[in-house]
């Protein structure tokens, strides 16, 4: 299959598995960044339309990733704070982007490539990242 095409299309001279993983990771990263930018931009535009001001002045007390997401979502109840929730969600999506990329790699190495060595490596990276998201 891919082997035969290799002579005519050097760019595709890779196994099918390899190709899939790169496409998968590429689109996870692209999708995450675009979603994050969209959320932040909409948050700012909303804020500007509502108050004619682009400035957000608030600080976040020390909290881990999950507390950050939960406390932001709780602000949804307040009409006044909704643009800020969007901005916070944009940052949360951005932080999840590399995390989801690693998560997908673990599954890909385990389920598609059956490469246990790299399942272990990416699994280690995933556990350290998970631990870091729970840091307090």
């Amino acid at each position, binding site marked *: 299959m891919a082997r035969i095409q290799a002579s005519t299309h*050097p*760019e595709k*001279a*890779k196994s099918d598995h390899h*190709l899939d*993983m*790169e*496409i998968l*990771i*590429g*689109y*996870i*990263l*692209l999708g*995450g*960044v675009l979603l*994050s*930018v969209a959320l*932040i*931009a909409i*948050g*700012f535009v909303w804020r500007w339309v509502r108050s004619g001001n*682009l*400035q*957000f*002045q*608030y*600080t*976040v*007390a*020390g*909290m*881990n*990733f999950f507390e*950050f997401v939960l406390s932001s979502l709780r602000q949804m109840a307040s009409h006044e704070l909704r643009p*800020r929730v969007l*901005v*916070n969600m*944009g*940052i949360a999506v*951005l*932080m999840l*982007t*590399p*995390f989801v*990329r*690693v998560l997908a*790699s673990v599954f890909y190495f385990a389920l598609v490539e059956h490469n246990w*060595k*790299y399942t272990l*490596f*990416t699994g*280690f*990276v995933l556990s*350290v*990242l998970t631990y*870091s*998201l729970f*840091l*307090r």
Partner: protein
Amino acid sequence: MPFHVLFLVSVLAGFVGAMTGMGGGVILIPVLTFFGMDIKHAIAVSIVSVIATSSGSASAYVRDRITNLKVGMFLEMFTIVGALAGAAITLVSGRRFLFILFGIVLLSSWIALLRQGHEGLHQTTRQDSFSRWLELKGSYYDRSVQQLIVYHGDRAYLGGPLMFGAGLIAGLLGIGAGALKVLIHDLVMRLPPKVSTTTSNLIIGVTALAGTSVYLAAGMIDPGLAAPIILGVLFGATLGTRLLVRLTNQMVRRIFLGVLLILGIEMIIRGVVRS
């Protein structure tokens, strides 16, 4: 700092960062502190924006199949632990130390960049057994020479631990530390230049995430400041990548060498003079 100043500074940082391949942080942090932002807060917001630029450009490089995923995923194990340690050190260290260290890193990048022009390809077919066990090899199609480049990664036993150091610097100073990573890929693991830069880009994203978590937990990330910086740096980086094609490499290098030297000396002076 008002929104438009933050945004413009970030566009500039992202622009210069993308044109030179150094990332936005090395410009962003000195400029933010120049405008009066506390260096620790500048480091914390900068590292969030590093996730954005790294992921954005990595997405394209990965789909172009130049990035070596296995090399990246092996080395990530070391950089994320380094970044966690580095960010934790920043939280407890003095500001004077951070200014001086930042200056030293800028000046070393200056030296690294100065040397860069004189190196040719130093590819090798040699590969130690550990790197072979790690399956560190690959190939990519180089459009500029219209050739399939086949390569092997070497000395992973040395590259891994050194990457811990690169992660440490990244977490400590809120930068991607791409220059350091590229240097390790290039000189220690003997990867082709294109593979070095693109793979380093992939690693920077998770490394920055590990650092970001520490700063978030410490309450140092202000979303109201981080958000315009993320938008600005990404916008600037997109512009920079587009323009890169038009400007000659030599000119970009000369401009950036000058900027690095000035910022490096300036940061060290500010660290020393601080009372």
